[in-house]
């Protein structure tokens, strides 16, 4: 795979055969995926969902010393308003002096739709460079400038000579795809083309180097892996994964979220790239391999003890550290068992429906099975081969229902109404509807909570126990606030609106 000479990456429907519309069992879905026939994307009824543009912001809003220029009409990227607090506080966990989230919008109007928006973009870039002196300026390009044919790459090439900041165009027009996770490829594409380059170590040497310190540095790098974090992770997740790697003698560098420009350069010195979520980073690490010769591991997501062990062993294998890893895994697992015992009586046989990113829902199901809970339904934003390894940690889920739908809460509401779970574990957005079914709800992810590694299993168990202990809030909502769907919808096949074409 090498798309790096193209202006923008291919959409995932084409590159991975990603499907965003399916209703059936997990077994049927996996079979269909293997046969390459899950590429359905349309519904006769649809609800709003994330797009490439907004999902791109999930990464670029986290970059340190960066300013973002939303190139589009005034509404595009306004959702960043919801991220001002989190972006700043999480950046400051890496650097106490980090700036908050700064963005401009090029505010394209009717005249620009006709005449083009390139001049406004130039003004915005010059202003951002001068006013904020950022290291990088990211320019996500929305539907309107894409359709009218603004040549943002040409603008960037022209202005790069006069700006101090590195300019990164990100081609993420929402109308290009329904597989919103293409956003990650768009961001990495821009990052790979404009930001990633070998660090100039000679220039960075502050003291005269000697052979011994060079050797030390090289040895350290040979034991350092890049961990590719995702916006839905917490600092606690990172600390836990880092702890596990340190325990087998490896160091971690974190990319891309909350990184600054130089982190992308030093990352090229690391010995291995490690994916945490296959939905996010296959495009990036494959290109890093092709372009810079860095090997990678992309397999499972370290949520749940089996997944965590598998993830760790895959990394250890690369460094021939399996024995150390296995010892650690055994010790961690024993300790976790003791810690979980207190929750098991409360959680046993409770029935759970999970909705969200397909990697994450399948991974999280492992924790539930570990706790003796029953997984009775999945809903994944999309489906492709990267979810496959996750199934290996689960037992007896072939007949469990699997709905592939990016958001589309109407299908989920129908399913939950049929399946009557005791708990819903769901993606952010849509709480206003889920709550009206009166169920207790655990967020599938939360950037201030720990879900990953061994401590994550304990934290999830502890939170489910707490959330199940009092569900009054949603019960009351359900009693007083009706759902908007007609009674006939609950009689209808939940996948009625999925179309073949």
């Amino acid at each position, binding site marked *: 795979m090498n798309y790096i000479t193209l202006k923008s990456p291919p959409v995932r429907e084409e590159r991975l055969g990603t499907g965003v519309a399916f209703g059936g069992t997990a077994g049927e879905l996996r079979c269909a995926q293997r046969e390459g026939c899950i590429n359905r994307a349309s519904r006769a009824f649809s609800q709003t969902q994330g797009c490439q543009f907004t999902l791109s912001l999930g990464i670029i809003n986290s970059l340190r010393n960066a300013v973002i220029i939303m190139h589009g*009409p005034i509404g595009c990227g306004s959702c960043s308003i919801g991220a001002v607090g989190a972006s700043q506080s999480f950046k400051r966990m890496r650097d106490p002096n980090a700036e908050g989230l700064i963005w*401009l919008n090029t505010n394209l109007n009717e005249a620009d739709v006709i005449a083009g928006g390139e001049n406004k973009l130039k003004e915005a870039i010059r202003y951002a460079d001068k006013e904020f002196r950022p290291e990088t300026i990211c320019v996500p390009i929305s539907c309107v400038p894409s359709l009218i044919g603004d040549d943002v790459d040409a603008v960037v090439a022209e202005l790069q000579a006069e700006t101090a900041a590195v300019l990164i165009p990100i081609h993420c027009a929402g109308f290009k795809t329904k597989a919103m996770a293409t956003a990650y490829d768009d961001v990495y594409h821009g990052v790979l083309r404009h930001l990633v380059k070998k660090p100039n170590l000679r220039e960075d040497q502050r003291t005269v180097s000697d052979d011994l310190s060079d050797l030390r540095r090289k040895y350290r790098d040979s034991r350092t892996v890049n961990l590719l974090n995702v916006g839905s992770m917490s600092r606690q997740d990172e600390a836990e994964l880092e702890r596990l790697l340190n325990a087998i003698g490896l160091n971690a560098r974190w990319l891309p979220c909350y990184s600054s420009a130089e982190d992308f350069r030093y990352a090229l010195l690391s010995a291995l790239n490690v994916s945490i979520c296959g939905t996010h980073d296959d495009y990036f690490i494959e290109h890093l391999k092709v372009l810079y010769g860095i090997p990678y591991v992309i397999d499972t997501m370290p949520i749940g003890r089996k997944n965590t062990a598998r993830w760790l062993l895959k990394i250890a294998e690369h460094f021939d550290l399996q024995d150390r890893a296995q010892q650690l895994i055994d010790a961690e697992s024993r300790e976790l068992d003791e810690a979980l015992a207190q929750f098991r009586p409360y959680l046993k046989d409770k029935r759970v429906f999970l909705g969200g990113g397909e990697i994450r829902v399948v991974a999280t199901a492992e924790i539930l099975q570990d706790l003796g809970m029953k997984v009775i339904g999945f809903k994944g934003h999309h489906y492709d081969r990267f979810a496959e390894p996750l199934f290996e940690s689960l037992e007896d889920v072939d007949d469990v229902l699997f709905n592939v739908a990016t958001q589309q809460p109407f299908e989920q509401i129908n399913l939950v109404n049929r399946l009557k779970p005791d708990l819903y574990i769901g993606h952010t957005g849509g709480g206003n509807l889920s709550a009206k079914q009166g169920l207790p709800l655990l967020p599938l992810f939360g950037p201030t909570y720990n879900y990953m590694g061994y401590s994550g299993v304990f934290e999830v168990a502890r939170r489910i126990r707490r959330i199940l202990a009092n569900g009054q809030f949603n019960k009351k909502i359900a009693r007083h606030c009706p759902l*908007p769907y007609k009674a006939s919808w609950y009689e209808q096949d939940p996948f009625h609106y999925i179309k073949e074409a």
Partner: protein
Amino acid sequence: MNKFVDRPRFSCALGGALFTLRALARAIPIIHASAGCGYNLYTTGNAGAGYLGGGYCGGTGWSSSNVVEREIVFGGTDRLSEQIRSTLELIDGDLFVVVTGCMVEMIGDDISAVLDEFAGEEVPIVAVSTPSFKGNSYDGYDMLLGGLFSDYVRQGVEKRADVVNLLGLVPGQDAFYKGNLGEIKRLLERLGLRVNTFFGEGETLENLKNSSEASLNIVLSDVYGVKAADVFEKTHGTPYISLPLPVGAAQTSQFLLEAADALRLSREAAERVVADEEARYYDYIERIADIYNDVDLQRYAVVVGDANYAPAISRFVADELGWLPRLTVVTDELDGEETRRIEKRFTGWESDAYPLVKFDTDTSSIQRYFQDAWEPSGNERYYDSFSPLFLIGSVFERDLAAKLGVPLLTVSFPVTNRIVLNQSYAGYKGGLGLASDLLSTLIAGR
């Protein structure tokens, strides 16, 4: 005039339209746009409006045609037709409103031809053009209401002298719209009027549908709702007056007397209401006469806000709290005429404590105006500093407040650091609420 914006405090026309519909009971939007528009705008409005939420059918629940490249090439009308049909099948609502995003406007989908297919439906379906490139979320409110006034509100209805409509508070952009409308409605009802606010407590689509009975539209703004009121006047013959959003006793009393005059209501009766309200108001304010004077709660103030809040709050802190507002920045995109109307609101204050008034949409500009508002320090040994200072603005002012080490109250959009329920900053109740919120911040360490 039109340029890039540094951290805009509004979204687009579609966003304004969606949150206006969010506030309208049992009105169901059908978004004809790219897939991400609705969710993006929901996230903006939810967080920015103190967690207003998706409500009955909103957020990820919003019906949306999710057009992709295929429709951009071949046209999106078939997809829209299918989406309207399925939405009617699925969703229980009393009014369905097609609102449009940029893509379908650029390819020129003929929406009215699609609506003709649904002419026989029992529920009303209307369409309003709301592309982002034609305006921001404040404009979207006007576009949406203008569309409903012409296509949904009953025509040829007899006017009733005692009925008025309230316009000018943009749901979502004003995080406190519901509390504010409730308070103004309560006061106008004390004058003997029946009041439609469309978005207020207990109101239904009937209030909107029958709003053509009104003999007057009161626009609580110098900017927002004026265009919609124009449409209303042309369509239904109801004139309008534009009065500023009143915050606190002084402005509210003035508002009530002007409204009474405009409706030719008894001046004496209105004065009785005003006197009664002011007495109740000062019964509360009297409580803080002690603490205000015991510890000196007077402050300099910098006010950053939209065209409704910026003048009203500046005047409130000057004329009632006895504070000294030194800088007010109005953060909307305004034309020359609108700017002049806002500037006029900085005249006739009892305190004479006028701030420097700036019009600027850019968040990084705010701090630059400080040196115009106050003589900067030249490292003199004795320097009369710009303190004690209080910043009243939006969450975008948080960094500035932290840098200056001054307290901040967020009132104007976006208000992501508060949960807003029934609070109000309008009217007498709103003035008490604002005084309480401001002064509580100052004594929080006690």
